[in-house]
């Protein structure tokens, strides 16, 4: 079982968010990348896009499959990691370092209901 970092919050859809102040970096978990296989394409939203919790903010594709990316909490997209456009395979190599977007949280309380690393790990068993 790979370690799921403390200080991150997780969704049952296998996204993570690392919150600092009113900002949160969002990515997908090691489990998610393992299930997908080799990532070859990522589609991310435009800067300034506003998302509701659970809303799709993009897609991630492996050779075989396509998956939606869902916002763990509501917010505005204030940064997009464009290096993943050209190097999508980084998501496989370093899933917990490969943030996709940074959200400015508009409903920070939503984060309270996300899973911590212990509960997320338990979910995968």
């Amino acid at each position, binding site marked *: 079982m790979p370690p799921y970092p403390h200080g991150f919050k997780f969704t049952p859809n296998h996204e993570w968010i690392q919150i600092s102040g009113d900002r949160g970096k969002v990515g997908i978990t090691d489990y998610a990348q393992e299930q997908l*296989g*080799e990532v070859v*394409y990522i*589609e991310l939203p435009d800067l300034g896009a506003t998302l509701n919790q659970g809303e799709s903010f993009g*897609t991630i*594709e492996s*050779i*075989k499959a396509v998956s939606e990316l869902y916002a763990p909490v509501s917010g505005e997209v204030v940064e997009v990691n464009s290096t993943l456009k050209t190097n999508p395979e980084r998501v496989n190599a370093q899933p917990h370092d490969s943030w996709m977007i940074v959200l400015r949280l508009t409903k920070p309380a939503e984060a309270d209901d996300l899973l911590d690393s212990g509960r997320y790990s338990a979910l995968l068993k």
Partner: protein
Amino acid sequence: MERAVDAPLKRTPLFARHRASTARMTTFAGWEMPETYSGIAAEHLAVRTRAGLFDFSHLGEIEIAGSDSLDALQQLMCTDLAQLRPGHTQYSALLTSGGTFLDDVVVFSLAPRHFLVVVNASNIDRDHAWISERLGAFGDAVAVNVSARYALLAIQGPASEEVLQPLTGIDLPSVKPHAFSHGEVAAVRATVSRTGYTGEEGFELLVPPQSADRVWLAILDAGRSVDLVPAGLGACDTLRLEAGMRLYGYDLNEETTPLEAGLDWMVCWAKDSFSGKAALRRQQSEGVQKKLVGFELMDSGIARPGHRMWADGSLLGRVTSGTRTPFLKKAIGMGYVSAAHAVETFEVEIRHRRVRARVVPMPFYRRQRPFGA
């Protein structure tokens, strides 16, 4: 993946071997098969540059024999089987009376009036029933579903011959493309053909199921020197697509004919009659309504089966195969476009976006043959 409770997944004789390894399993046509061992891209590249070993035991085999069996097959299939000499194979198709694909198959001529037909996994029972039903009209001919008697292994890639030769007494250089020979591989009775579904040099081996594991391990062992890898259906799909080979159930089905699929060369018009001939003749004289094209995307994105293709606001058709291939590193695909629109570029609707694509000749990839070969 959803499936009916009363339809357990079928497993090949190598299932335990796959499960004991690092293979990630998937379901295909009712079979639990390895999707990948070490990553689809890595396996794809290994086959293009060295060698890969596949388990294709889910494919079916139907034996057809009897003094009237050649006449019968000439009626059931659209190619000219009179051209097929014993010891050789031929790519052929079973067509409905409407000229559409019931299946695409490979016919082995074992002896005069004795054939082995390798069919797609999803069609085994249907093909067998369809053939059997029609054989009665031809006198002395029988069809036997012998799928359980064979495991089918494929070694594909430029180093295939180098790996396989030390394991067999068959003189592999004398086995020409599309030909086969009977002998032993790793001391196991085997029928070895120079055939494949990857666009690469290679061999396919029909072996008894109880010995499949022995052959599998022997080839993996012999392949160590060239870094041969076991490979799954994921790489098989990207390899065959790069090579422009159609996949039944996606690019070919009961709604498409050889003329629409760009496989006109399969149709032997010189035969007096065969199933689907009248319908194909009509289609040939009237012109096809749709045509399979190969395409590559001009912008970022990946086309997938089912995506719609548009030009100037008109729906052209749908994508039937599509992926991003590891060797060419391009998003490529196939799809049927309305023949009324002879387009060179179009757009693929990928979820909410429209991505530009251009028609390119197939195959997308053609292996470089050594000089003089």
